[in-house]
């Protein structure tokens, strides 16, 4: 089993690609850079497939399969191995990341074709793949943290890819700093974990938490601290503000990092640490609440955004909220499942949006689009599919995952009506703003000036990924289809071991069912369940949202303005994203800036530190002024000094010699 015993290969490939492109790419032609970047990712994908094959031959007791490569650092009891592990969860993430990443690499070769810094872009992208894979394959918290910070770095680099554009550079900084706040919590969480369990190795932690009782408070603290990191990384309330601005980066970046993979790292982390979370109800509740509120809240913001990518960004935030909601109510598999499907359709949405932007020559404002349906059919259809998927229309991937989540929220062991309600409303809003997006973009009359912009379908290397992703957005959900619709819940059963291995005992039957033993659900009447599923609230609100959007933006397009006029206050409040950025800058940024300017910079740095430095320099100069008389540049005087030294040395030697003699 080569790959399984050489997991590092999967990491090495993109890293090598990044290094090669970063070092030599500048001189090379685009095809060369492509072949390196895409080639490395392709090989990575293939090796992941091979890994899957080998993984299927492992017996359950071999799981999780850990490959320990070298001891990274040892300090007393603190020991970090560079260890990678594979289990079902990792495998899912690997597949999602490397598959979507692969598609997006291909897409980028088309999208970035006319951009400067081509090699730089792909070097960063490969680097991101490396760190993301590190993150998901990590076998302990520190290695995971490496990946965690690494993807943050790459996100920063790629958001600010057009660093000459101030807004882009600022967005990059914003993303970096905001996530840093979360990462601080994460770091503390890691330290606390080590303090508690004396190890940062997943296996050890889980075993010890499962075997010997740890005070719930500690676990809660750890969980919440780790969750803070997730909040930052996955753009949850209150740290979501960076994600919309991150749209300054190239669209493939938004698709890969800020929709499909990096932002879901938080969800993955929570799912990975499920043994801790499951034992900390408080933390679980916090996760669920944050998730639900974020889901609803950012959906509302999404309603009125006119920038196509920003709409998608807020939708991403909201979908992430759903995932956390799922985790919060204990249905990790649902969360991960939604993560996967979301990776498909949200990546698709972004890529399609990119294709649209590409088509209308870089315009991102939906108000300057419209009527693109016939001009760019492939983009239109794929985007429509994605929209249906995210809106939760039955039969599409999104339907199953979202349905799972809402069911867990409504009927799960940790069911909570308010959370469920928020979820439902959020779902409705989601479908509304997504269809609004579709209608504004593809229907109605063109609002761009058709003389200058000549709309064209994107090249094949962009449309093909779209098609593939569209395919996935339809069928991606099916192998998680519940019995209700004749599915086998394969996905849950596949992931079950990860979440049940260290699950707290005893678990309620529903929990067991959610953890995925299919028998429990079978009691009910299939037909009835089916009708219930089809006509269940999610579908209802989805259709409602669709109808509303249709009525507002197709039927009588001037309605929105009147509506906005009627509820001006609320409208402007939402339109300005609840002024959150302004509030933050007023409450945090400005004071911080003032303090750092006046205290740290002027007082401490200039006054104290520079004072010391300059003072020592001045002292040295003064001393030199005295000493330079000695340095006449006259060889004879130098010789005399040498002589002095020699004599002194001889005296010393003789003294020592005599000491020895006596």
């Amino acid at each position, binding site marked *: 089993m080569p790959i399984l015993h050489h997991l590092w290969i999967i990491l090495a490939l993109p890293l090598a690609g990044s290094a090669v492109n970063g070092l030599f790419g500048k001189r090379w032609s685009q095809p060369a850079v492509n072949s390196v970047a895409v080639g490395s990712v392709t090989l990575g994908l293939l090796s992941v497939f091979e890994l899957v094959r080998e993984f299927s031959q492992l017996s359950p007791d071999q799981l999780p399969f850990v490959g320990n490569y070298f001891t990274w650092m040892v300090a007393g009891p603190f020991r970090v191995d560079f260890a990678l592990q594979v289990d079902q969860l990792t495998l899912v993430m690997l597949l999602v990341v490397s598959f979507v990443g692969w598609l997006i690499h291909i897409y980028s070769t088309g999208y970035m074709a006319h951009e400067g810094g081509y090699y730089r872009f792909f070097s960063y992208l490969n680097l991101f793949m490396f760190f993301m894979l590190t993150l998901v394959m990590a076998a302990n918290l520190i290695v995971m943290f490496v990946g965690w910070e690494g993807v943050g770095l790459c996100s920063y680099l790629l958001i600010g890819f057009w660093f000459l554009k101030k807004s882009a550079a600022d967005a990059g900084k914003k993303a970096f700093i905001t996530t840093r706040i979360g990462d601080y919590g994460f770091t503390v969480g890691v330290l606390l974990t080590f303090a508690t369990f004396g190890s940062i190795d997943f296996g050890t932690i889980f075993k010890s938490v499962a075997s010997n009782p740890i005070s719930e408070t500690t676990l809660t603290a750890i969980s919440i601290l780790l969750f803070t990191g997730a909040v930052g990384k996955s753009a949850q309330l209150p740290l979501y503000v960076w994600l919309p601005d991150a749209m300054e980066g190239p669209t493939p970046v938004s698709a890969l990092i800020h929709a499909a993979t990096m932002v879901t790292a938080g969800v993955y982390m929570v799912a990975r640490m499920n043994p801790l979370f499951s034992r900390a109800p408080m933390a679980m509740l916090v996760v669920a609440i944050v998730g639900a509120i974020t889901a609803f809240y950012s959906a509302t913001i999404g309603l009125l955004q006119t920038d196509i990518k920003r709409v998608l960004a807020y939708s991403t935030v909201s979908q992430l909220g759903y995932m956390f909601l799922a985790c919060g109510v204990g249905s990790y598999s649902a969360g991960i499942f939604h993560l996967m499907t979301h990776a498909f359709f949200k990546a698709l949405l972004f890529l399609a949006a990119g294709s649209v932007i590409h088509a209308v020559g870089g315009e991102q404002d939906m108000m300057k689009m419209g009527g693109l349906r016939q001009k760019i059919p492939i983009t239109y259809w794929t985007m429509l599919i994605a929209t249906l998927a995210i809106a939760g229309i039955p039969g599409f991937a999104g339907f199953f995952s979202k349905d799972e989540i809402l069911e867990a929220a409504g009927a799960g062991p940790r069911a909570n009506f308010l959370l469920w309600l928020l979820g439902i409303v959020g779902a409705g809003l989601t479908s509304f703003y997504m269809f609004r997006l579709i209608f504004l973009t593809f229907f109605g009359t063109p609002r761009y000036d058709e003389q200058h912009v000549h709309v064209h379908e994107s090249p094949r290397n962009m449309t093909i990924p779209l098609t593939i992703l569209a395919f996935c957005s339809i069928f991606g959900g099916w192998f998680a289809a519940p019995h209700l619709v004749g599915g086998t819940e394969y996905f849950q059963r596949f992931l079950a071991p990860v979440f049940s291995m260290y699950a707290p005992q005893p678990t309620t039957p529903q929990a067991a069912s959610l953890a995925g033993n299919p028998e429990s659900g079978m009691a009910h009447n299939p037909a009835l369940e089916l009708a219930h599923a089809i006509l269940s609230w999610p579908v209802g609100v989805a259709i409602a949202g669709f109808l509303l959007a249709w009525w507002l933006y197709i039927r009588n397009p001037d309605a929105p303005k009147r509506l906005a006029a009627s509820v001006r206050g609320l409208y402007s409040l939402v339109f300005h994203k609840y002024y959150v950025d302004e509030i933050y800058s007023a409450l945090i940024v400005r004071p911080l800036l003032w303090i750092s300017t006046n205290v740290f910079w002027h007082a401490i740095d200039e006054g104290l530190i520079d004072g010391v430095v300059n003072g020592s320099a001045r002292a040295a100069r003064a001393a030199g002024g005295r000493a330079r008389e000695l*340095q*006449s540049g006259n*060889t004879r005087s*130098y*010789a005399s000094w040498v002589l002095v030294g020699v004599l002194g040395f001889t005296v010393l030697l003789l003294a020592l010699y005599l000491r020895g003699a006596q």
Partner: protein
Amino acid sequence: MSVVPISYYLVLSGVLFGLGVIAFVYKRNVITIFMSIELMLNAVNLAFVTFARAHNQVDGLVFVFFVIVVAAAEAAVGLAVVIMLSQNRQSLSIERINHLKL
């Protein structure tokens, strides 16, 4: 009194070395300073040979050999340098060549 004490040779070499040092410090002409270096080397050689004889080992002589070789190399390069110096600045006085100063 048919034997010459080792220490006489050593003293002679020491004195010669000291004179070489004095010459090095005192002389102003670059070439002469060079010569004083050679003088010191010679003094050291004398000591080497004396010890070689005293311990009846040829290693000392080998060292003398090497010293002479090095001296030759040094003279070759050094004199070339001196020539360049006197061509660039029409003086051989070490004190007119005080550009070791920063």
